[in-house]
């Protein structure tokens, strides 16, 4: 079989090696997974292929030899390479056809030919057996639907190599399966697919071949059928950590720390207001629950069913339209973010780039952000204390590179996530934790460590609320799991019912509103 991609590349950022003669060979018509720990160099390697990052040394052949020194996005696209970004690039207020036309506007007699765009998109969708309405407003679709639409658009133009960096991180279980099926279909048509994922069972399910990166080097090239344990071992160069179970149940009379009563929040996506009748579920309606000291409660659900509104209302970023929120028995419904944090609320933000980190600031500054009370001496900042806190946060979750003076932007995605978690859970006197997608984009070892920290927080008496699209994560952490569907709680499982064999099916049914 012919090769769609053959490359070797080295790349340094400052005085650190991101890639050391890393090798990647992808056969045409196959799905190829790239795996490795956080910071191993996966994103950097693929960005080089797509022309977003320039390699220092190496060779690159995409069907034909490329000049690495001149390689760029335009050159990559001309060779038939496409990339789907993890955070969708669709404009929510435009229809899918309009989105497809953006930047590649079909023109007829000097005017935009939207009919042609609609036709092309429908044809591409039909070829890939995707049911897709070119006139649907992008913002009204679920995250999974948007992503599949975007893939169809990219594949319609890039017919040789499709690159996806952690495409499944945002998806609910059912949508993951549909995505993987689509990728197989694309490969079946002869287009090579390269994807990065930290979820090894997905990799095992979909990939024909696997390239394992460790510390910037290619350490293994595995074929289909290798046990996931083997893959994990190759990634870390040793034994992978075991997965844990929820912490011991708190006594039934433990105090309620976080209480939410009849909470309603306006829709944050804006899709409903921008295009009336777009059919968005919209916001949060009448949600009530409570979390006791030492308890871990999970909120499951397909992204876009009110999770964002719930999290932001509880931490104080958006106002509640109705209802009450209390923390430790004190009414906090209208309290500022600062007041809630002072009362011991920790928040692992879902979107680390917006709500978690200031990317251009240093790691130390980012640790200080939100912990200013711990480092302030009057008006002055106690810089020794900053350094201590930063180093402790970096060591706590093994953030690499462990350099407090590095810009947060220079950390890999998973290491940025570790930094946010370490900062929030490392705060003094945490009484309640709101963790939204706490392990999004982190590798197995880091995932285990983050889960340990969340369990430890609960064991120390904090009330922990975990919002996750990953049911396995919720099973491993939670005493109770509630499902959000269209802004309301569709059901809740606890105790034996949550451990029962059919728990996954029950939750899954609630998630899609089929119960």
């Amino acid at each position, binding site marked *: 079989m012919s090769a769609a991609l053959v490359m070797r590349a080295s790349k340094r*950022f*400052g005085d650190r090696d991101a890639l050391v003669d890393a090798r990647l060979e992808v056969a045409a018509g196959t799905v190829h997974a790239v795996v490795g720990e956080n910071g191993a160099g996966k994103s*950097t390697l693929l*960005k080089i292929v797509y022309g*977003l*990052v*320039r390699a220092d040394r190496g060779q690159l052949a995409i069907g034909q030899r490329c000049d690495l020194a001149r390689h760029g996005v335009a050159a990559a696209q001309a060779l038939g390479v496409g990339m789907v970004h993890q955070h969708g690039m669709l404009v929510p207020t435009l229809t899918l056809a309009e989105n497809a036309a953006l930047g590649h506007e079909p023109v007829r007699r000097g005017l935009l030919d939207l009919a042609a765009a609609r036709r092309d998109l429908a044809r591409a969708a039909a070829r890939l057996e995707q049911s897709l309405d070119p006139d649907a407003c992008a913002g009204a679709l679920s995250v999974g639907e948007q992503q599949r639409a975007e893939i169809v658009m990219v594949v319609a133009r890039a017919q040789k190599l499709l690159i996806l960096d952690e495409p499944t991180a945002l998806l609910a279980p059912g949508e993951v399966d549909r995505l993987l099926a689509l990728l197989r279909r694309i490969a079946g048509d002869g287009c090579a697919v390269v994807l990065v994922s930290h979820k090894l069972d997905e990799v095992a399910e979909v990939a024909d071949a696997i390239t394992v990166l460790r510390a910037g080097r290619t350490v293994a090239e595995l074929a289909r059928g290798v046990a996931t344990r083997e893959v994990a071992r190759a990634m870390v160069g040793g034994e992978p950590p075991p997965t844990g179970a929820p912490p011991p149940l708190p006594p039934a009379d433990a105090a309620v720390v976080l209480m939410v009563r009849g909470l309603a929040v306006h829709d944050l996506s804006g899709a409903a207001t921008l295009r009336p009748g777009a059919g968005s579920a919209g916001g949060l309606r009448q949600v009530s629950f409570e979390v006791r000291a030492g308890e871990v409660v999970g909120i499951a659900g397909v992204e876009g069913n009110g999770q964002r509104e719930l999290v932001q209302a509880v*931490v104080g*970023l958006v106002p509640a339209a109705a209802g009450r929120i209390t923390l430790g028995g004190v009414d906090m419904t209208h309290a*500022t*973010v*600062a007041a*809630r*944090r*002072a009362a011991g609320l920790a*928040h692992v*933000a879902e979107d680390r780039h*917006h*709500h*978690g*980190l*200031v*990317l*251009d*600031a*240093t*790691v*130390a*500054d980012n640790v*200080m*952000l*939100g912990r*200013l009370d711990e480092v*302030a001496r009057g*008006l*002055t*900042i106690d*810089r020794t204390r*900053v*350094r201590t806190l*930063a180093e402790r946060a970096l060591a706590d979750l093994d953030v690499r590179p462990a350099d*407090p*003076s*590095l*810009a947060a*932007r*220079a950390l890999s995605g998973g290491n940025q996530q570790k930094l946010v978690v370490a900062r929030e859970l490392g705060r003094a006197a945490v009484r309640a934790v709101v963790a939204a997608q706490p392990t999004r984009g982190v590798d197995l070892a880091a995932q285990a460590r983050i889960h340990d920290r969340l369990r430890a927080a609960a064991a120390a008496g904090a009330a922990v609320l975990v919002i996750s699209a990953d049911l396995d994560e919720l099973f491993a952490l939670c005493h109770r799991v509630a499902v959000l569907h269209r802004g309301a709680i569709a059901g809740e499982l606890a105790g034996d019912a949550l451990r029962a064999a059919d728990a996954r099916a029950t939750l899954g049914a609630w998630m899609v509103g089929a119960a």
Partner: protein
Amino acid sequence: MTPSGVDRGGDGARFAELRAAAVALLAAMAAGSLLIILAGASPLEVWRTLVARTFGDAYGAGQVVFRATPLVLTGLAVAVPLRAGLFNIGAEGQMIAAAMCCAVVGAALPAATPALLALPVAMAAAAVAGGAVGAATGALRAYRGAHEVIVAILLNAIIAGVALWLGNQWLFVGEATRTASVVEGARFAELGITGSSASSSVVVALVAAAAVGWLQTRSTIGFRWRMIGGGPDAALAAGISVARDRVSAMAAAGALAGLAGAHFVLGHKHAFEEGLGRGVGFLGVAVALLAQGRAAAIVVSAVLFAALSQGGLGVAELVPKELVDVLQAVVVLVAAATLGRTTSVGGGAR
């Protein structure tokens, strides 16, 4: 290097910024030389005269100090909000409002007020007036969502008009467009550099630069300004009141611009005059941009711009005087073009 002082990734990045500033200056000189040749003069001759008339003798140097003093202050008035993600184009209006207020208070003091009391009171009046204008601008942005640039442009016009109206109506004395003189005690001492106008207000400018430098790198408020500038959403999620700190940054800026007004009133004219300090607020934008908003660099940048305007007078017989204005603009343009690249770590790798 201690962590909190660096926000853009360590010593290497800072060195890169210095190098970029040097490149900007060299490029500006090259572009300037080209313009001089086009104007039919000899670049060497012009540059030589420019240096001789500024740093070549005591008078020239004194005048550079005099001109740099308010530029440091308006440069800081732009730099503080710049770090907080706000663009203060209103230093001009803040300065005029402050100068008016400062002149009125300075003249109203009892004639025998000792300098130890009169100077601080008159300066405080300036800082408060400028600060109030700045705070109003910031508040309109923070709480009403009105863009601070538009607000400031409008306020600049309003303040210039109101100052003139107040003056004509009540405050200007005699036939002149000039208010009553401030009392003896409320005047900055002349430094006495052979006839130059430099006064002890330069001390105020240097102290202000040091204070802003301290605020930016060592204080909690400076940290908050930096964070709301770098990532307002993340700052909000971390419990920082973005709205309040936008107001505080603009208030501090207004107070600094106000001190520039005090420099003209208390250190030079000893009264408010129509047209006083005109353009210094706007030039502060250039000073701050060239210095990338860093306090220490602003002093250097202000001296450079002061030297260009002072030296411009000296080369007037060699080249048209507009050329000097063009040169100042070229420095800023080249700086913007070359410095912009160093502001984020990692360049194209995103």
